[in-house]
């Protein structure tokens, strides 16, 4: 089932470039995402219940059959996240593209009508982007993983540049250059990894690396981890390599921001987890765990500092993504139950943040500005959007019941159990700062006193563009209340394999 998962979005992406009819192309986007989700569900179900024709999860752990493309528990989890997000995003995008066609967005600063990129290019890149992300989750070869991650960068760059505008161009350039150079360092890491295994005779195939981890050259493996961590960490948005992230997230269309934040950052995280598992198998867990935890905590601190005094609500969401990536890295660094929490956090953060970005697109459509100070009393103009906006705030900051809360709680509990009170204290303090900073923004935007602009047209909220966010939020709440046994099992297996 791996081949259809890879080929379907790839072929559909190529097809989207030549389809001339707008409605047909949007249909193609939506149906490809539905088929992809269907295949993904089939893959998850097939592998978990071990039915004929699917590789059961245990088969890959031993490193018996070297395969370049195969799904282990970790890959399967991230594939599920990506596919689910893309399902929501494609539905949102088809309405978004139609709305942009009727009424190209107006830029509040420049009074400048967006001159949007051709829709065919946008849709084609969106689908190819999905194909590349699927390849990332399926790769069992570190070289292929690298190539797939770089491909995601290149395919998402045109998406960020959808509004043909100076600022989006600037964001695209920074994204392209910083991420490409970062990923080049990861390639260097791959070289070190290959050199570390020269004596043991392993290539860069993950199963072989894990099986022969004991024979890897330790100093070279450490160098490999550092380079791969910096490379994929740049892509993941860990501070201090995060500088491209707020720009790209704030300038891209809402649906692209949602995919970048929810799916792409996770793919980079997967790259780090892969090399981390090799290092852990070689007995370097203390070394890698320390680095992951340190940079994770530093990202949370950076996000908290930049959150205060933030003026642009999409940038604010971007910094919140940096915070969550920091928490994921921290959880992965601690290991054990915190690793489980980190993976649960990856899932729930993706859903909650994608929902928030979808809603931010509606806020932008209603208010025509990204400045926080100019959005007041949103609930009067767009009550349903405002309700979702507020709900998203409660979920993303980790108020119970939600999957985000559960993941943060698990990670914090692990720090207490290890007796690392200073770490727990710092984390709690900066989470509180983040909560306060975001609360100020969200509450003033939703409730503050509204000044009606002259000649303001009444705004009708498109229900179809609210639905994906609503469904994602409900799923996040559901995750906090009840974790189905199969999902718990999958997370457990992923946490064990990626330890």
């Amino acid at each position, binding site marked *: 089932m791996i081949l259809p998962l890879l080929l379907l979005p790839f072929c559909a992406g190529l097809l989207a470039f030549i389809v001339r009819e707008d409605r047909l192309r949007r249909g193609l986007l939506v149906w490809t995402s539905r088929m992809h989700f269907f295949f993904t569900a089939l893959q998850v179900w097939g592998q978990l219940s071990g039915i004929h024709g699917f590789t059961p999860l245990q088969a890959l752990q031993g490193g018996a059959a070297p395969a370049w493309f195969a799904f282990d528990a970790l890959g399967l989890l991230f594939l599920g996240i990506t596919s689910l997000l893309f399902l929501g995003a494609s539905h949102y995008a088809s309405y978004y593209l139609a709305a942009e066609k009727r009424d190209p967005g107006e830029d509040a600063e420049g009074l400048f009508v967006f001159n949007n990129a051709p829709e065919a290019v946008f849709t084609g890149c969106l689908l190819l982007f999905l194909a590349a992300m699927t390849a990332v989750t399926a790769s069992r070869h570190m070289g292929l993983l690298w190539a797939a991650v770089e491909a995601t960068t290149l395919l998402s760059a045109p998406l960020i540049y959808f509004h*043909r505008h100076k600022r989006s161009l600037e964001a695209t350039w920074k994204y392209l250059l910083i991420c490409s150079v970062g990923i080049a360092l990861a390639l260097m890491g791959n070289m070190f990894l290959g050199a570390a295994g020269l004596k043991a005779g392993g290539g860069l195939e993950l199963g072989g690396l894990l099986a022969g981890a004991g024979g890897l050259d330790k100093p070279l493996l450490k160098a490999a981890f550092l380079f791969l961590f910096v490379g994929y960490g740049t892509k993941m948005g860990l501070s201090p390599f995060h500088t491209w992230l707020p720009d790209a997230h704030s300038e891209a269309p809402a649906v692209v921001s949602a995919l970048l934040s929810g799916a792409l950052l996770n793919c980079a995280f997967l790259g780090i987890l892969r090399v981390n598992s090799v290092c852990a198998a070689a007995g370097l867990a203390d070394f890698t765990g320390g680095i992951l935890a340190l940079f994770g905590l530093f990202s949370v601190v950076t996000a908290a500092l930049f959150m205060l005094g933030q003026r642009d609500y999409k940038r604010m969401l971007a910094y919140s993504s940096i915070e969550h990536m920091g928490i994921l890295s921290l959880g992965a660094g601690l290991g054990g139950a915190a690793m489980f929490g980190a993976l649960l956090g990856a899932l729930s953060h993706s859903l909650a943040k994608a929902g928030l970005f979808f809603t931010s697109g509606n806020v932008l459509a209603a208010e025509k500005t990204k400045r926080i100070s100019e959005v007041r009393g949103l609930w009067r103009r767009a009550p349903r959007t405002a309700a979702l906006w507020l709900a998203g705030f409660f979920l993303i900051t980790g108020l119970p019941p939600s999957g985000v809360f559960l993941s943060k709680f698990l990670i914090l509990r692990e720090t207490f159990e290890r007796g690392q009170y200073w770490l727990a204290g710092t984390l709690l303090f900066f989470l509180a700062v983040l909560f306060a900073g975001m609360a100020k923004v969200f509450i003033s935007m939703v409730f503050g006193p509204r000044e009606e602009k002259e000649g303001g047209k009444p705004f009708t909220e498109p229900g179809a563009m609210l639905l994906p966010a609503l469904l994602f939020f409900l799923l996040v709440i559901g995750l906090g209340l009840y974790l189905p046994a199969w999902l718990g099992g999958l997370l457990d297996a992923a946490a064990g394999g990626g330890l």
Partner: protein
Amino acid sequence: MHTFAELMIVLIILLDMALAVTGSLSSCIRLVAAQGVVAGLLPLLAAGGATHTRALVFAAVIITLKGVVFPWLLLRARDRSGARKDVEPLISYPASILLCLGAFIASSWLGSRLPLPESGVAWTVPASLATIFTGFLLITTRSKAITQVLGYLVIENGIYIFGLALFVEQPMLVELAILLDVFVAVFVMGIAIFHISREFDHIDTAELSELNDWRRGEYGK
């Protein structure tokens, strides 16, 4: 044959130095192309007489890409953008070459300390590290978007040589995927440069500074 490969390594280092002091944009593009070609030839020379078809095909692909396609794309981007013909460095040329020399000395020291497998060709590791550093130098101290792409390519050359020094054999498919990525990267960056020159009337990246968190200018009032 090894002496010839070592000569090539010396050539790589000399090209790094030349890149640090060259002022003309088109010469820079040609120097990077030359370095790519030399790097592509290295595995053939290092292997001595016994070369496989696989190595030959691969070297041919690399040389065509780095020696012909990339310079053509970049020269086109330069002409289209109507940019000035020099690289406009942010630091002086003597400072550039001093940094480059310093990097070479540091890489020689580092290369002798790294616990790497013994390479048949001397100086490969220092040369690759120095090349990577030169790439970073080009990215950080030159103000044009096009020189940043050149820097990226130089880093890529350096990493390629580094891989040769370490004997990391990747499967053909992976090597080709990596090359494809580099190709698409240069292609997409070329398009981006074209758009930047159209929007801003120049390709000076210093002007790409409207997006940040602290400026209280017109954007953040």
